[in-house]
Structures are given as structure tokens and as C-alpha cells.
């Protein structure tokens, strides 16, 4: 095994052994999205009103609140995995790749955290309707 070129350093090591877990989690969250996002989109089109009081009351139901939390987890995990592949495919230099994957991780975690906290605040009665 050489130490000179990039290819020489990795030759013979095999894969990093992370690929199949990434692939599998993308499928697991895809099934989660299939169920939860379909429910969410149908529910949105069926909502009688988008006014604040109606939305707060809707999210206040335990079933809706928990489904929305699971949706936030599944969607933000799935988009983190998917966008990571896009970044890795189209951004070739190392610095840009690290920057965008870091940005993506921050976006996914912050987005999910904000969504989940907001759902819980509404569900626990912290928002006057």
C-alpha cells in the first residue's frame, strides 16, 4: 500500500462500511414519509380553516401532535440523507463538501428542533388560541 497518491492510500482498505446504513436509513425514513407526509398533505387539504385558533386546536390533539413530531423527525432525517448525497455528487473540492454537509446538518437539526418545540408548546397549551 502506497502513501503517495490518494488512490494509493485507500487501495486495499475496502469501503468505509457506512454506505449500507445510509442507504437503509434513507429507505426507512422514506416509508415513514410515505405514511406521515401523505396523511399530512391530505389533512391540510381537508382542514376547514387555516385561522390561528383552528390550527392551534388541531395541533392540540395528541394524535395530531405526535404524528406531526414523527413527521418532522422522519422528513428532516430523510432530507439530511438525501441532500448529503447530492452535495457529495456535485461538489468536488473537499472544503466545499465539508462546508455544505456541515450547513446541512445544522439546517436539519435546527429545523426539526424548532418544529418539534413549537408543536409541543401548542400541544401543552402554551399558546392561547
Amino acid at each position, binding site marked *: 500500500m502506497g502513501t503517495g497518491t490518494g488512490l494509493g492510500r485507500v487501495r486495499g482498505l475496502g469501503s468505509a462500511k457506512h454506505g449500507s446504513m445510509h442507504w437503509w436509513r434513507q429507505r426507512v425514513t*422514506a416509508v415513514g414519509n410515505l405514511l406521515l407526509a401523505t396523511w399530512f398533505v391530505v389533512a391540510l387539504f381537508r382542514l376547514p380553516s*387555516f385561522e*390561528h385558533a383552528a390550527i392551534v386546536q388541531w395541533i392540540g390533539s395528541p394524535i395530531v401532535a405526535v404524528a406531526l413530531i414523527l413527521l418532522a423527525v422522519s422528513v428532516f432525517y430523510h432530507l439530511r440523507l*438525501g*441532500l448529503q448525497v447530492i452535495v457529495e455528487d456535485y461538489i468536488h473540492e473537499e472544503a466545499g463538501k465539508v462546508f455544505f454537509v456541515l450547513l446541512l446538518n445544522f439546517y436539519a437539526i435546527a*429545523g426539526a428542533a424548532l*418544529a418539534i418545540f*413549537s408543536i409541543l*408548546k401548542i400541544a401543552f397549551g*402554551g399558546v392561547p388560541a
Partner: protein
Amino acid sequence: MSRNPGRPLSPHLTIWRWGPAMAVSILHRATGAGMAVVAGLIFVWWLTAAAMGADAYSTFLAVASHKLAYVVWIGLTWSFFQHLCNGLRHFVMDMGAGYELKTNRMVAIVVMAVPLLLTLVIWAPILAKLASGEGE
């Protein structure tokens, strides 16, 4: 290294003839990335605004019900169904089925046609209702 310069370098984007399977593949990435950013931000904004109170929520609602916002809603509806339908196609192909050339081509075409149809079926009545409401 001897190479016949008459032979094309492969793989290269410009020398492929576009087919339905390629189109559906890049649409999957485009709609996925689009929803990841646009729908993700709107989803978080919607929930955060609702949790902050009636004032913050009314700002969201004013933007979300603007005429131009409907372009985004319709685009997201199509993106959702496009990504969902092709996701189902991927599940089938993950099981090793649907790779025969004719089947693969036909499924790819269906996967592009169904989302357009669903988007039309959902939004045509809503837009018709909005248009008639404005006429009164």
C-alpha cells in the same frame, strides 16, 4: 496508455440520449432538494408562527395566501407527488424488479404523468372556486 481518440469519453452528460428513466431520476433529485429547502422552511415557519401567537401567525397567513404563493403551493403539490411516485418506483427496483427495458421505460413515463394529473385534479377545483369568488 493508448486510446482511440475517435471513441467518446464515458460517462459524460452530453453524449447520452435523454430517456424517461434519466428524466425521472433527475426530477427525483430536483423535487427532493426543492422540497427539502422550500417545504422544510415553510413547515418550520408555519409551526413556529403558530406557537408564537396570533400576530406572528397572521403574518404567515398573509404571505401564504398571497396570489403569488399559490405558484409555490402548486409547485410543492407536484413536487410531492413526483417524489412520492418515483420513491415507490425505487422501492420496486430495490427489490430487483422492473429493469426490463420496456417495463422500465413505461413505468418512468407513468411516474411523470401521474403527478401532473393528481396536481391538476386537486388544484383545478380550488382555483376555479377562487376565481369565481373573486368575480362576485
